[in-house]
């Protein structure tokens, strides 16, 4: 398989995209506002689609170009817009108060997970001097940060964003490690994510409504 060298222009751009994606995952972990979660996720997806574009340009792969376009349209624009319209505004979600671990502790744990990803992945697997050698630990770290977000946040919207960030990490690894993944499979993964987000949106709004009803019922019970 053709390999991207770490010193070529495309290699540097991919490395850089990987770092920005990691930073945006950290930004999400360090935030408390639902609006910001969605904004950081959207920005991360835009950078991801840029990375896919770089890979497509290097490998001259039309399938990867389509994928870059899909990433931008669905993850970069579609999911953030739908989440804002259908969840954040309609349910008037502002500040996330269901946080199980303090923000600074969470960030330290995130740093530890990133170091862990480097220690575990780098020496074992990958040939040196190839771009994948730098990006695969980054993408592993993004997956772990997404999982961390799902663990330390109890609110359903935060967990949904955590899953989507982990998914972005997988995708980052996929385009650099195995740029030639069959197109049908990649398209299927996209379809799954889109369907998954839709069904999760239904559950999230259902759960939030039920909780709101439950708490107003409590208020009525205490009257008088």
């Amino acid at each position: 398989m053709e390999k991207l060298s770490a010193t070529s222009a495309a290699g540097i751009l991919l490395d850089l995209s990987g770092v920005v994606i990691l930073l945006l995952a950290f930004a999400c972990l360090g935030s408390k506002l639902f609006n910001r979660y969605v904004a950081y996720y959207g920005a991360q997806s835009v950078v991801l689609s840029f990375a896919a574009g770089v890979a497509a340009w290097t490998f001259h792969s039309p399938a990867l170009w389509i994928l870059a376009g899909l990433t931008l349209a669905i993850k970069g624009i579609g999911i953030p817009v739908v989440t804002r319209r259908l969840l954040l505004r309609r349910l008037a979600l502002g500040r996330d108060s269901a946080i199980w671990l303090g923000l600074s502790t969470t960030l330290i744990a995130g740093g530890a997970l990133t170091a862990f990803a480097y220690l575990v992945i780098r020496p074992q697997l990958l040939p040196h001097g190839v771009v994948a050698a730098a990006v695969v630990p980054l993408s592993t770290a993004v997956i772990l940060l997404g999982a961390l977000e799902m663990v330390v946040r109890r609110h359903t919207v935060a967990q949904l964003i955590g899953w989507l960030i982990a998914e972005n990490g997988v995708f980052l690894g996929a385009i650099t490690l195995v740029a030639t993944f069959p197109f049908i499979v990649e398209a299927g993964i996209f379809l799954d994510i889109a369907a998954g987000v839709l069904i999760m949106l239904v559950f999230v709004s259902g759960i939030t409504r039920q909780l709101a009803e439950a708490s107003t019922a409590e208020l009525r019970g205490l009257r008088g």
Partner: protein
Amino acid sequence: MTALAILIVIGPLAGPIAAVLRARARAAGWASVAGALVSLASAITLLATLVHHAPLTGWAGFLYVDVLSGFFLITVTGVTVLAAFGSVAYLSAEEDAGTLTTFQVRLYFIFFGLFASLMLASLQTGNLGLLFVLVEASTLASAALVGLEGRARSLEAAWKYVIISSLGVTIALVGTLFLFYAGSALHLTSNERLTWPYLFAHAAVLAPQPLRLAFLLAVVGYGTKVGLAPMHTWLPDAHAEAPSPASAMLSAALLNTGMYAIIRFLAIAQARLGTGFPRAVLLTFGFASVVIGVLFMVRRGNFKRLFAYSSVEHMGIIAVALGFGGVLGLYGALLHTLNHAIAKAVLFLDSGDVSLRYRTREAAQVRGLLAAVPVTGGALLLGSLAVLGSPPFGLFLSELTIVRAGFAGSSPVLPLLLLALLAVAFIAFARTTTGMVTGEAATPPDPYRGRAARWAGAIPLAAGLVTLLVLGLWIPAGLNTAILRSMAMI
């Protein structure tokens, strides 16, 4: 043969089509039954052909059916038939009682059919990437079934299920990526490098380190769907909150589909890494699941949760059997998969009948079932005995085979531990179900309107128990050959 493979997948879509055409519970239910029967008949014909022929391949490896897939296809289509009968009884009773709206009933049949169809499709693909896509899609379809009743508890269970399983399957996707990467040195096209038969044939030249990681990630990822501890936490909630026929599908079909994916990765890993590492991984997760399942079965309470923890235990037993390995271990694992699927389908369908009559899922509130409703009580008693591995039912035979496989290995400690855990499980499980079955009680109101619904409820219980009895006394020659040929694939 390709036509049969397609027929298997589109059969279960009869229910969704009827529901979209605005059928009510009875019509949509009988359409599901008819579709499931078509699928089962096609699966049996396909397996009978495959036993004597080369595997069916096509569409650049996206279609690949060998005897192992055929065996799992029979299991899943069989369970779908039982659950479709159960759905007719359960959903028409719920619709008549007004517990579920007609819209909810239609949604149920749409997602029930999609769920079955996606699982059957995932058993027929050789492309491990497409396998991920289909397994994730079946998660989404079944999550809709879990959250169908729309109460706070069922929505919470559905949320927990969809979020944990999605993350789990994402981990399996990372494993698939590493497997793909392990094949970098092979001169195959990108499609072939993700296709199981090619990978299995070239296993000797895969890079060992990425492969090791790939196998571990696949066991953790698909293990989340199987319900292996400690990734099982979604399972009891989802099984308890879903409508009972959907619980039967989750426990008896979905968990097995996850196990099928693990077996595919196991085959490649064993061919390259030897048996040591993969077996150690499976034994660890397997025993953890048996221990967790048994411990939580001791607690008395919701009987659907009890059955769910029993599923965790049995999936652990299958993982342990794969970990013991050898001819006996693999034979036991496959036979146990089939037996457990039928027994658990019977128990969950029976639990649906109980919860319709008593309007509760708490074991303590159900008494004297055998006297009050002999069919339901008898099926619960016999089903419990079957699932606990008493003779003369099939699970006795498969558990005995698995324990013998353990004693054939180097140390007798592990099989002895397994026997001890099985004994505890017997006491814990039987304590709850015998309490429900025995005693004096007034007859609860009959929830079914019409004889057809009553029969639809009783047929799968009788059919399942008879099959279990037959499998305990005599394994048909065709099934025996199919299992032996499947083992050659691993």
